[in-house]
């Protein structure tokens, strides 16, 4: 497992966290959009899997440590119904359907994304620092 493998794996982790941030931002931005005739914004979520099938030694040789199979899927959630009879999108009973986005859980997810991204940067920086240290072998400074 050479240095570039660590770089690639960390870069893949960072890309995944970026995607999760994009999705969380989209969810937050569309939290207050109402559905017209039952068709509205569905909250999105990122689903990622690690290729766990290979044995560990094979992981180290092939750059298979990165998260693969990353998809953005619509979560099958029930819309939030709010009673607003005067709203143009209200149904016959006076309810307006909003996407089921909880601002609290989205904020927690944002914190989690930020920390995970930071952790990836830390791992990459450590790998780089180790390489720099290795290059210092033999120098008298």
């Amino acid at each position, binding site marked *: 497992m050479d240095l*570039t493998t660590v*770089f690639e794996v960390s*870069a893949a982790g*960072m*890309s995944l966290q*970026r995607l999760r941030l994009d999705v969380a931002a989209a969810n937050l931005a569309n939290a207050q959009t109402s559905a017209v005739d039952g068709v509205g914004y569905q909250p999105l979520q990122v689903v990622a899997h690690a290729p766990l099938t290979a044995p560990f030694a094979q992981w180290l040789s092939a750059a298979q440590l990165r998260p693969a199979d990353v998809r953005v899927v619509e979560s099958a959630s029930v819309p939030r119904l709010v009673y607003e009879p005067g709203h143009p999108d209200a149904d016959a009973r006076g309810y307006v359907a909003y996407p089921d986005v909880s601002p609290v859980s989205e904020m927690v997810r944002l914190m989690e994304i930020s920390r995970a991204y930071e952790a990836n940067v830390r791992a990459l920086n450590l790998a780089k620092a180790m390489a720099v240290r290795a*290059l210092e072998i033999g*120098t008298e400074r």
Partner: protein
Amino acid sequence: MSIDPVTLAAAQALPPMNPLPPANIGEANPPPAGAGFAGWLDSQLRQVNAEITAAADDGVRRLAIGEPVSLHQVMINLERARLHFELVLQVRNKLLEAYQDLTRMQI
């Protein structure tokens, strides 16, 4: 455009390496060894330069003109290029050290 500083920095990073081959060729007796080292250094420098140009420089250029390229990928490519350059620099330092030891040898 705002791309220039990077190419300039890459170009300025290289010249300090060049004074070495003349010093080596200036040695009277063994031209094959001197030419070999100069050639090796030249090829390594070209390779590192190509790496910088291909990955890092290209990434910065694309970022500067607003193409959708991930920021961390650009930074990682820059770091990788820097590490490669550092490696060639260290090898050059060690070879130069050995060469200077030889020139200081009492006969």
